[in-house]
């Protein structure tokens, strides 16, 4: 290698590396900008929504507290009612215990004005004489029960809530209740975690909260962080300012964050860097690899050609001089083609990767969100059940209290007292029925009522109370007139003997339950769902295929199929593009109750940005390609003398040579015999093109192996939500989409890698065993190849959405069809496939099929076309391509068999041939080597047949054979050697010449020489033939 070439090589390598570096930098920074921009937009949106969310949660908490308080206030009030209505109230501990059990509270006390405890159900930690309890004493000055107050007894670890109601001017009843139930409810509905756990920033981001007072993490999706010190976890305190966007490291994870300070907390909307980088790194990696491959292939190709030229000499025809530079046409043309194809490949891959990653990110987030909503629905349902149960329990307790009061003092069964009892209990109406089921007293306007005897009627159920059933809690039912939810609860009244004596019934409107039940409605749940930029959720009724909820009111109730959804898209577990109202969304669905719920996102920013990104990559790529191209195709002109320095082609056995393609282009091909040799060709034997091909193969092999490794170790290499895992999880819709194509590619890489490895192993084994082993290994190797290819194709077809079971079934049907008539066609097609896969021959090969010989012009699906050399195209059906002789070899032999009379001296003829061979060689320039005398082929009936062969190109063989025959005839004529032909001979004895001793010796020598010279020439099998086989 000359120094010049070395410098150029190094220069090329540097340019390629620099290009890759520039490309990598551009890609990374562009992707970074994009992802930060979109992250910031996501965060901004979340930060704007946050205050409303928190307010909503606070309102929820306030409502929960109010509900809880009103229940216990009513309990206090009802004791006060009993105290003032002659129901056997007395300020004793025993009575308080009775009330405690009746009302289901933790403690009931009677406390005087100064805070002294008069009676109690059990001991209390509270000292009511403290100013702290002034709030309870307000009952002495105002009507109704006191507001609630809560005291935490930290030393005892108890928290108690207090409610008071006035008994008389100097004493009040105090209810002490542990608010654990309330706390739990608040934690589930209004707490920070209940609010923030439902929030997603962008696709995988989240919001966590840090106390502004002590920097303790108040909420984080990972429970282990809650309660830890945010500063310890890596947050720098100066970053925590309202409205900043910044990078924050938290718990070792880098997050892009927006900070908002609301109340006493910092809310940090965070998107993990890994989230942004994971897709970036893979995308950039793959694009860079392809770019690198392309650049390297072009550069190496130029380098190899130059090296070859240097070795074999320059062909001045290949060069065009341009000023001080010289353009290498041969390289230039091919380099342009390579560069262009490479450029297209880079663009395609960029576009493809962008699509894949943005789609997979969308898809993953849609799926996650869908799962979230599903959980929300389940949770709200469960919550509604719990709340219903709580309601029943609480109102039953009220009914029992009413029954207790009425049993203690039956004089209360009048409208006024019932009204004040209803007020104390905070229920709407009380009804007292006698043992006949007739309404005797009520505070409601409807005072004339008897329980129905029709089992269909709502009131019939309460007849059971007349028979002595303890209580009946009826399900809340919508009222006939108003449609409002109303609930009735009845408790049996008993006389002093304990016999059932009518019952008391209360009715109320469970408003809280009503709102909760309505919140379980699909539209309420889906209403607040927002995802990424412009993502939302909608629901379709299972039964009639109409929209149950859609953000656009107009569509609600409309048919989904009419709006653009496909029948096949109406199902759970869907994950693909769909069109609603003319807009394309990427959507995931699940099935719940009566609905299919979809989470839909419009094409993301990344998706819209993929075109500029692709163009930028392409532009960058083309500049790099041009630089490489210029380096490869141009060189500094040399001095004249150097140009002609042609070196002799080295004599190494060469397995490649030029053939003419049907198009007239000359191309290098590998000789037939060499194609089935396991041993790979020496690097040195390869042409520049073959070397580039080898490099390309190696690169593709590396890529395939990398993909294969990534697929096999995906769990360890990639995070759970990466595109790799997503594509392999198969959670997308089978069909012709980017995921199916990717999955098919991955599968292909894996299968090919594994097949390659097994084949390599078999090849090694073949070397160990003998001929039989080698045959077996080849067989197994070929079997594995077909099995893997067929399996792979089958699987990939399945991924792309072709129903393979039908395919299989139809294959069965097909076989029947075959037996009827299409058999030939199918076998042609199959044979064609096998010819291509097996590589028996290629276009441009010279083959012989049966008696037909010619150059292969085309291998079609059904037929193979060969040119017989006369310009005739012979079309052979693939199924009939058998007994193929592939005669593609570098050199052929033209054979000429000549008959000589028995009488002629063989030695003389041989001497003549020896002297004439050089002349023949001279006269027939297409002879590459020879002629060679091959000896006597046969002793026929009338003649001795000798054979002469010459080495020539297969293409010139036919003509050469004819020329050779002519030459031989002329020689025979010249030397009077007779060629026997059927003739009538009038016998006239003549004397034959005897060979002289010298002639005999020379003939022997000649014979030996010729045999020696032509020993490796083959052709033996053609004995007795015309040499055309």
């Amino acid at each position: 290698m000359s120094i010049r070439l070395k410098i150029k090589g190094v220069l090329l390598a540097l340019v390629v590396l620099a290009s890759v570096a520039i490309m990598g930098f551009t890609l990374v920074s562009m992707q970074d900008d994009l992802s930060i921009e979109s992250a910031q937009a996501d965060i901004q949106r979340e930060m704007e929504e946050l205050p409303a969310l928190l307010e909503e949660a606070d309102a929820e908490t306030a409502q929960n507290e109010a509900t809880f308080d009103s229940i216990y206030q009513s309990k206090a009030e009802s004791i006060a009612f009993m105290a003032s209505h002659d129901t056997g109230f007395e300020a004793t501990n025993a009575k308080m215990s009775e009330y405690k059990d009746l009302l289901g509270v933790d403690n009931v006390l009677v406390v005087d004005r100064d805070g002294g405890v008069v009676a109690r159900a059990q001991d209390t930690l509270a000292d009511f004489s403290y100013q702290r309890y002034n709030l309870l004493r307000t009952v002495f000055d105002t009507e109704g029960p006191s507001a609630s107050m809560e005291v935490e007894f930290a030393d005892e670890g108890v928290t108690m809530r207090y409610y008071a109601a006035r008994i008389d001017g100097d004493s009040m009843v105090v209810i002490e209740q542990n608010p654990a139930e309330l706390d739990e409810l608040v934690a589930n509905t209004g707490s920070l975690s209940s609010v923030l756990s439902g929030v997603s920033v962008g696709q995988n981001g989240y919001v966590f909260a840090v106390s502004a007072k002590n920097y303790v993490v108040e909420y984080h999706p990972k429970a282990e962080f809650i309660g830890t010190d945010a500063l310890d976890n890596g947050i720098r305190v100066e970053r925590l300012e309202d409205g900043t966007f910044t990078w924050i490291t938290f718990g070792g994870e880098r997050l892009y964050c927006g900070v908002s300070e609301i109340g006493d907390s910092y809310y940090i909307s965070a998107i993990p860097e890994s989230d942004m980088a994971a897709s970036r790194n893979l995308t950039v990696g793959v694009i860079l690899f392809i770019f690198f491959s392309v650049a390297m292939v072009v550069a190496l190709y130029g380098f190899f050609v130059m090296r070859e030229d240097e070795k074999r000499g320059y062909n001045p025809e290949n060069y065009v001089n341009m000023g001080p530079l010289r353009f290498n046409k041969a390289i230039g043309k091919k380099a342009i083609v390579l560069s262009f194809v490479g450029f297209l490949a880079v663009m395609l891959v960029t576009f493809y990767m962008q699509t894949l990653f943005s789609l997979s990110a969308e898809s993953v987030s849609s799926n996650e969100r869908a799962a979230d909503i599903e959980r929300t629905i389940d949770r709200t349902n469960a919550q509604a059940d719990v709340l219903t149960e709580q309601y029943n329990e609480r109102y039953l307790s009220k009914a029992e209290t009413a029954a207790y009061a009425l049993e203690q003092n039956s004089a209360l069964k009048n409208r006024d007292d019932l009204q004040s009892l209803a007020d104390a209990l905070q229920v709407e109406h009380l009804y007292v029925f006698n043992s006949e089921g007739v309404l005797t007293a009520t505070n409601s306007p409807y005072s004339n009522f008897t329980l129905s005897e029709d089992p269909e009627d709502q009131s019939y159920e309460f007849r059971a109370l007349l028979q002595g059933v303890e209580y009946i809690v009826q399900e809340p039912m919508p009222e006939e007139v108003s449609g409002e939810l109303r609930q009735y609860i009845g408790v049996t009244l008993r006389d002093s003997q304990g016999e059932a004596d009518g019952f008391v019934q209360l009715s109320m409107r469970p408003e809280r339950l009503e709102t909760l039940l309505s919140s379980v409605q699909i539209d309420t749940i889906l209403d607040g769902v927002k995802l990424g930029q412009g993502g939302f959720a909608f629901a379709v009724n299972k039964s009639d295929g109409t929209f149950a909820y859609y953000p656009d009111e107009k569509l609600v109730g409309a048919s989904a199929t009419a709006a653009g959804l496909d029948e096949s898209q109406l199902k759970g577990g869907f994950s693909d593009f769909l069109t609603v109202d003319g807009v394309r969304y990427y959507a995931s669905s699940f099935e719940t109750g009566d609905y299919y719920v979809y989470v839909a996102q419009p094409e993301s920013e990344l998706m819209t940005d993929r075109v500029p990104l692709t163009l930028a990559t392409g532009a960058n790529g083309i500049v790099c390609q041009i630089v490489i191209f210029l380096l490869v195709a141009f060189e500094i002109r040399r001095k004249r003398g150097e140009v002609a320095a042609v070196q002799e082609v080295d004599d190494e056995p060469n397995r490649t040579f030029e053939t003419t393609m049907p198009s007239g282009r000359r191309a290098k091909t590998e000789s037939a015999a060499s194609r089935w040799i396991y041993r790979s060709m020496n690097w040195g034997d390869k042409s520049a093109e073959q070397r580039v091909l080898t490099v390309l193969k190696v690169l593709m092999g590396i890529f395939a192996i990398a993909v294969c490794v990534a697929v096999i170790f995906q769990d360890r290499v990639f995070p759970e939500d990466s595109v790799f895992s997503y594509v392999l999880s198969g959670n997308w819709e089978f069909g012709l989409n980017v995921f199916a194509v990717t999955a098919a590619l991955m599968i292909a890489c894996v299968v090919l890698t594994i097949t390659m490895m097994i084949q390599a192993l078999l090849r090694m084994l073949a070397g160990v065993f003998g001929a039989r082993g080698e045959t077996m290994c080849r067989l197994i190797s070929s079997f594995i190849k077909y099995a893997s290819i067929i399996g792979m194709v089958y699987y990939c077809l399945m991924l792309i959405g072709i129903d393979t079971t039908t395919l299989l079934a139809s294959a069965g049907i097909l076989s029947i069809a075959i037996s009827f008539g299409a058999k030939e066609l199918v076998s042609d097609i199959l044979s064609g496939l096998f010819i291509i896969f097996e590589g028996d021959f290629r276009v441009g090969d010279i083959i012989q099929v049966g008696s037909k010989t010619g150059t292969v012009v085309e291998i079609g699906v059904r037929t193979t076309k060969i040119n017989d050399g006369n310009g005739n195209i012979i079309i052979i059906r693939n199924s009939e391509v058998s007994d193929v002789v592939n005669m593609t070899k570098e050199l052929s032999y033209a054979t000429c068999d000549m008959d000589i009379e028995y009488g002629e001296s063989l030695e003389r003829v041989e001497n003549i041939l020896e002297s004439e061979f050089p002349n023949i060689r001279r006269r027939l320039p297409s002879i590459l080597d020879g002629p060679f005398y091959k000896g006597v082929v046969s002793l026929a009936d009338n003649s001795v047949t000798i054979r002469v062969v010459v080495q020539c190109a297969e293409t010139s063989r036919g003509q050469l054979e004819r020329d050779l025959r002519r030459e031989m005839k002329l020689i025979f004529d010249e030397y009077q050697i007779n060629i026997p032909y059927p003739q009538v001979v009038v016998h006239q004895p003549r004397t034959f010449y005897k060979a002289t001793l010298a002639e005999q010796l020379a003939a022997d020598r000649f014979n030996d020489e010729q045999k020696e010279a032509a020993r490796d020439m083959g052709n033996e099998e053609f004995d007795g033939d015309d040499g055309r086989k």
Partner: protein
Amino acid sequence: MGKKSKLVAAALVFAVAAFSLVCMAGCSADSQEEASSGAGTLRVGVRDDIMNFSYLNDQTGKHYGLEVDIANEMAKRLGYADVEFVSVTPDSRKDMLLNGGVDCLVACYSIADSRLENFDFSPAYYTDRAIVMVENSSLITDVEQLEGKTVGIMSGSNAGPVFATKMYELGVIGPDVVENTDEYTQYQGILVKKIATYEELSKALETGEVDAAAMDNSIASTYMNEDRSILDVNLGDQEYGVATQKDSELSGNVANAIQEMLDDGTIAAYIDKWN
């Protein structure tokens, strides 16, 4: 693996802390000399329970907050190589400084005449005010309602005298101290209970043992919640300064360093940071 190493780290932290405690007790005299010579480690007394001023994180054994930042910066400017933080309480801080247990106090220590007799103070780096906190359920909304009630303070804190002075100014209580013990001070018309820690003070307020609590605003924010209110009265400004031993060599340097930090906006930046 991660957990294990965390455990090991925690154990190490404890070991180091224990060792330094022992060392502090054993060789305080030596290190005192070393410190006063202006090299090595500056031992700073800080609080461990005041969020945003100086708060000890149990997990890391480190203090965080405004005062910690100020102390670090001050030590840097004074040329110390290292700063050792020692947790002090209002009860113990006086003795700690007098006995040389620490070189200086940056511990929400307000500049008061009574204290100036014993210590030197730097210029004030933070101005706070003392307030009165009550439970909403006590229905106390005005400071005059406190007459005849019990008010809690943290024992040793400046809030007690400041509070009593203000009450007297407002005419709620009489001028005399009826009785003064370690447990409480009985003024004419108000009982001031002295409670060991702010946490206990907060608990006493919660259970009703005290009807109101007087403390510095900076401290109050830690214990404030939605069931509590701060009465609309300013008991007086409290100026926090760095305290050093009377007439010690350190006093002037510290005062200069703090003044410098005040002048170049360093302290303002810290206050902003921890706000």
